[in-house]
């Protein structure tokens, strides 16, 4: 996920849009692909998407803003997701998350000052039998405690 500084290349946007046009229901895969390439869905992509899929800017904005996954600006170099759902709460995830956010001086969705880590809530990672659970980028971690979180953050350079 180390691409917040990627320059936005109009040609690359066009290629990604074009590659998804033949799918049935292309918009979500297309937005995922853009986010994969640039780290977020750049505003420069809005017009080409609307043109290719024949939808209005309002419709596109409606979709992008509906889903938690899509960003309109880059996240930190790493994204740490901490599960807030019931199974994790049953083993103390709420206090764990509060402690972490306080220590980093962040609120949910905040990014550390050095730009390394964005902390986000997630509602279930399917690791409910080894809770509390977290995920650093795509790497899952179970039975998380403060020490494990510290280690993850240190590895990420936060």
């Amino acid at each position: 996920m180390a691409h917040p500084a990627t320059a936005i290349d109009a040609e690359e946007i066009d290629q990604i849009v074009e590659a998804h046009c033949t799918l049935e229901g292309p918009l979500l895969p297309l937005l995922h692909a853009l986010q994969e390439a640039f780290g977020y869905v750049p505003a420069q992509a809005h017009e080409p998407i609307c043109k290719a899929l024949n939808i209005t800017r309002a419709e596109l904005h409606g979709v992008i803003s509906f889903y938690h996954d899509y960003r309109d600006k880059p996240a930190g170099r790493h994204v740490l997701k901490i599960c807030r759902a019931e199974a994790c709460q049953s083993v103390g995830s709420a206090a764990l998350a509060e402690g972490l956010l306080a220590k980093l001086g962040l609120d949910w969705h905040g990014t550390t000052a050095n730009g390394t880590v964005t902390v986000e809530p997630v509602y279930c990672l399917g690791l409910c039998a080894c809770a509390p659970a977290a995920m650093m980028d795509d790497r899952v971690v179970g039975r998380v405690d403060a020490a494990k979180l510290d280690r993850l953050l240190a590895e990420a350079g936060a």
Partner: protein
Amino acid sequence: MKIYVPMDSAAKALGAEEVVAALREAAPEAEILRTGTRGMIWLEPLVEVEIDGVRHGFGPAEPGDVAGILDGSSTKALGPIEELDWMKRQTRLTFARVGVVDPLNLSDYAAHGGLEGLKRALPMSGQDIVDEVKASGLRGRGGAGFPTGIKWQTVHDADAPQKYIVCNADEGDSGTFADRMIMEGDPFTLIEGMAIAGLGVGATKGYVYLRSEYPDAIAVMTRAVQIARAQGVLGPDVLGSGRAFDMEIRKGAGAYVCGEETSLLNSLEGKRGVVRAKPPLPALEGFLGQPTVVNNVISLATVPVIFEKGAQFYADFGLGRSRGTVTLQIAGNVARGGLFETAFGISLGEVVNDLGGGSATGHPVKAVQVGGPLGAYMPVSKFDTPLGYEEFDAAGGLIGHAGLTVFDDTTDMLGMARFAMEFCAVESCGKCTPCRIGAVRGVETLDRIAEGDAEALPLLTDLCETMQDGSLCALGGFTPFPVMSAVTHFPDDFARLKEAAE
């Protein structure tokens, strides 16, 4: 030397990759095979070593245990896996291969009974296939428990140029992970089940709508579809039959409500994941307005074994109108958490205390939330309730996707009720007022109760009735289950604070 280590994300989350690295270094000549998980999550990472053709378990393994595992002296030796009490007491039909086979090896899959169901279904007529599913008594495992065969019949009978099979793999409920486990541990079962569904109803195209929170499952399923296509299980000529079925994996985008079938269809079409009013049923007007079967992962993944062993074999398990097996997911504050597949009818108490071994903290169990965030909190006094759709309904709960989240006596039930409303407010799609506004008012009302406002409790009850009766889908309609069950069964947690304020 043959060694098996799970690549399931629960095993990875507990350090399986580090154990594999240590094994590779200590025994470079050993053949290390990756599997799904057996479901005994408290023993993960669970390393299995084949000795005289029998797989012996060692767990929970850490890199430091590797030398002992290799020379057989490890104190973490569990003996033959199949002889463990947890394994012997199960009836593994849907999960028969999970933890046993290499998830991405199609010949391994076929060697363990895979593709037999599809081969049996291929010469059958669509109606015969639908009848077989009806006879099995299979009901939707996603939560609603609607008879799968009836749904298929509606799609079968519909006349349309294109029909679809959509697999709902948006497993967002806390306390559930069976979908993830089977997609990571035996993905071909789901593919085979979808292909049979396609033959049954006359659909040639399928989609798996898989949540983005499951990157490992997405990777395994995507690869499995490529392999199945390359080897002729999917494509224009399924297993040389001349009949077509193909499928795609689609990634969700982090919206809980998309686990509701109509909002899932909107999402799949590239729209906001708002709920659609029913009718029309998705079976008649589903994906892109065409007749569509929308089934949960476990429902579809159970279809192959029904065709392999016959509908009657499957229907012979179970209780009342709940036929076959239920895949219990034991989670939360529990000593032995994991997946346990058994015939319907086992009691809640047996699951929590006997299988689960009580709470992980050693404190007394206070409540078990059954069926995810929209399921009721069941108190210990209801532990004799048998796991069955009707039986749980009669006890004021729902089994949903059969996830059970255990809470110990330190849990503040008012806090859990508040969280249920907060979650509903965050995840509401916004289409209907009882859910969109009601959830926000619910949080406020619970805060008033917490501050000792005696007038707020009747308001909460009234609000919950409105949400239950007036919401379009289960998100707003079922959020009252956890809230009101907490109020009903744990009144002290709601009254205590009031007294303190007086």
